[in-house]
């Protein structure tokens, strides 16, 4: 922060209050005669460490600190001090209050510690606020107002300084021989350029190759559909017309989550006559039809079913799918219909999957095709 160190001025510059630069102008605060003005500048004749600053204007860095004369009524001042002190005392009391609440208030209560949280928050806020407000009040009421002016150091260094820098830099560059040794230069660039490959290669084992994982789910031929809540298989007749159930492949909970995260499926019971193309009727059972629950837009579970319109709505971005028409998109950002799961009924009357989904479920990806 050498810029803080005034780089020197002619002795005559010091302490002059120049109205044209940073001083008072008409309409501005006028210096009262006899105002105690303290000038802090460099010792006269000090060697400028950085040379002249900027091309235009005087070279001097001036700092002028004008402090308002202390006209404080001592009684007024003491009253202000008491106000400040009062705030700090309140702060300390609030801190004690916080400690007391921490120790004595119960957390395992019927409201799960909400009362303690309120009290802790309120006391902490009070302690902090009065601590801060006291300091601000101190600054405002007890310290003298000041009107300080300091030079900026804009515009970079002097031409001579820049010239010197150039010389140092180019002398060094010349000694390095950047221009003279092209082979060394180019091979350095090459080596430095290929080096990041090592870092990239190191990242390879962060995860497995995607392979076909996005094309398959945990559904397999003959896998029973189970209710995601009860984990019980479902029989024809378990559901009313117009109702909807989230189902999973039986035994999914024993698999790692990433193996079944694409498997959530919704089983909907419609009137058989309502189903229209492009619903694949061979994959339905008596008005029961199953679709992937994973939205084809961003992968949220499409879980809002509107019985009246038979629309399925994704709560994340409002993609809307028509259940009776192969879950085609009728609104929103999703581009593709929800894939249909081929279902059948096994010999015990339980719903089973005929196979896995015949197309990748969930959001699109580059290799999807």
């Amino acid at each position, binding site marked *: *922060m050498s810029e*803080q*160190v005034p780089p020197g001025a002619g002795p005559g510059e010091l302490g002059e209050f120049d109205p044209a*630069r*940073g*001083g*008072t102008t*008409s*309409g*501005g*605060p006028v210096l009262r005669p006899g105002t105690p003005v303290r000038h802090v500048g460099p010792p006269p004749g000090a060697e400028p460490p950085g040379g002249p600053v900027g091309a235009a204007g005087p070279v001097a860095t001036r700092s002028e*600190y004008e402090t308002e004369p202390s006209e404080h009524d001592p009684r007024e001042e003491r009253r202000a001090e008491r106000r400040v002190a009062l705030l700090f005392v309140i702060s300390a009391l609030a801190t004690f209050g916080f400690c007391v609440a921490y120790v004595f208030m119960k*957390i395992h209560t019927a409201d*799960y510690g909400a009362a303690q*949280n309120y009290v*802790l*928050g*309120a006391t*902490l806020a*009070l*302690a*902090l*606020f009065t601590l*801060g*407000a006291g*300091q*601000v009040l*101190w*600054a405002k009421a007890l310290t003298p107002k000041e009107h*300080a*002016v*300091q*030079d*900026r150091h804009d515009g970079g260094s002097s031409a001579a300084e820049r010239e010197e820098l150039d010389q140092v830099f180019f002398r060094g560059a010349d000694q390095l021989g950047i221009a003279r040794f092209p082979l060394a230069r180019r091979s350095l660039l090459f080596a430095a350029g290929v080096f990041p490959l090592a870092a990239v290669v190191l990242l390879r084992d962060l*995860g497995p190759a*995607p392979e076909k*994982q*996005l094309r398959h789910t945990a559904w397999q031929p003959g896998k029973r559909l189970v209710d995601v809540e009860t984990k019980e298989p479902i029989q024809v007749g378990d559901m009313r017309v117009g109702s909807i159930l989230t189902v999973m492949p039986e035994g999914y909970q024993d698999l*790692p*989550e*990433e193996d079944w*995260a694409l498997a959530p499926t919704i089983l909907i019971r419609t009137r058989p006559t309502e189903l229209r193309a492009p619903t694949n009727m061979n994959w339905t059972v008596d008005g029961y039809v199953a679709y992937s629950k994973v939205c084809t*837009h*961003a992968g*949220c*579970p499409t879980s809002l079913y509107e019985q009246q319109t038979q629309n399925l709505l994704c*709560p*994340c*971005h*409002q993609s809307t799918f028509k259940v009776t028409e192969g879950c085609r*998109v009728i609104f*929103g*950002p999703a581009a*593709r219909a929800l894939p249909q799961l081929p279902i059948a009924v096994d010999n015990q009357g339980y719903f089973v999957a005929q196979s896995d989904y015949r197309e990748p479920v969930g*959001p*699109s*990806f*580059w*290799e999807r*095709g």
Partner: protein
Amino acid sequence: MSVTATTSRKALRAVDDRLGGASWLRATMNKVFPDHWSFMLGEIALYSFIILLLTGTFLSLFFDASVQRVVYHGSYIPLRGVEMTQAYESTLRITFDIRGGLLIRQIHHWAALLFLSSIVVHLMRVFFTGAFRKPRETNWLIGVTLLVLGILEGFAGYSLPDDLLSGTGLRIAFSIVEAIPIVGTWAGFLLFGSNFPGEAFIPRLFVVHILLIPGVILALITFHLLMIWRQKHTDFPGPGKTEHTVVGSRLWPTYVLKGGGFFFVVFAMSAALGGLAQINPIWLYGPYNPAHVSAGSQPDWYMGFLDGALRLMPNWETNVLGHTLSWNLLVPALVLPGIIFTLLALYPFLEAFVTRDHAHHNLLDRPRNRPNRTAIGAMSLSFYVVLLLAGGNDILATTFHLSIQQLIWTFRIALFVVPPIVYYVTKRLCIALQRSESEVDHHGVETGVILRSPDGEYTEVHAPAPTPKVPELVAVSGSESGPASRAVAREGRRRRNGHNGDGGVLGRVGGFFFERGKRQSADPEPPRTLTRR
């Protein structure tokens, strides 16, 4: 001499003995800062970051970033016996079984919102007053980087508890990564360590959230402050203010006391919010399960514009040579924020290029005196606000009983119609404000007193313009800032008046940028900047 004074003197001596920093310390204490409320907005961001570090350290003592599955036996009865990850379980423990845990967690979350809000408002202050101009472009770039990092950090933070809401957010993030052409699928699997959701991601995200991003943010904030220190703070023009000086109060004692006090006030606000206003009640959402979602899923506000963009985007997707391009994810989630933040970062350079203003500026602009910059800013904000509102369209629809489809179409149209209108209105407003001011300047204030002259003519008496109460708001930056900015202003006028040397697009754009209202430029008087004496 009192004991304190002796001790202080000893301490000062000790520092100087070892570092020889007496002159540096003196200069530091004497450093002058200008005084204006809007200069404290960045301070709020700084202080909320410190609060985030403090509360985050406390939370990291108890949080367990693991997706090991456990059965909950804690004190929150509704979730007892439910299987969940340790990340979620330990968040519940912080909430219900650690005294003050909920308070600190909620302060942390509120401070994060405050951090990003204050960054955005601070950015608006810097933008509309032209504080980003030379020599402060680098600090603008650092600021934009901090904003982006802050958004990522916030998203990483609220994704950690592995509740139903945060898991849904991560599901969307995975889908967005998947949609990146060529490398998307690989990138997703490498980041998550498997197909979504996997076991690796939460622990990795934890490292990103508590080490990587905060480390970079801390370094950048340090650099941001060093730059302010070095370049000195900008100030509004006014009597006694020049481009070459800084006017205000000194660091010691004024700003040490005021700044320190303000830190505690900001902390107090966060603590009050954390204690009294519930935020992110993860126990109500339940643990994440890919088969479930809660209706009305809303991200934190700073992610809202991205969510809105995702909601508004039409369902475009193309298949090219056996490959899928999901425009419905790529455009709103990657292309759009890419464009927004690139333009934001480049704005100082674009403006300097167009106006050819390469002078140093330490005095700020009044927004009305830069009608086009102000209008561009207002236009961009309106675009952002439409996206933000669209991100809450389901809430709006249920609250006001509107059709979600109609609402989305309204927002889709508004996104393109509202910004140009806002641009035009803002610009006209700025020019009108300039004119009314110059009117008062030239002709005085209307008094409401009507005089009839002997020959029957009625005239209103105008009083001379009063001395403005806040003089620094009236003077125009550049009016006393030396030949450089005068040359710029002259250049603008020259272009506006059609005497354009290059006659190219750049010249016309530059002239357009300096526009001050037609009536004024048609004024036979030599054009001048609005300055009230």
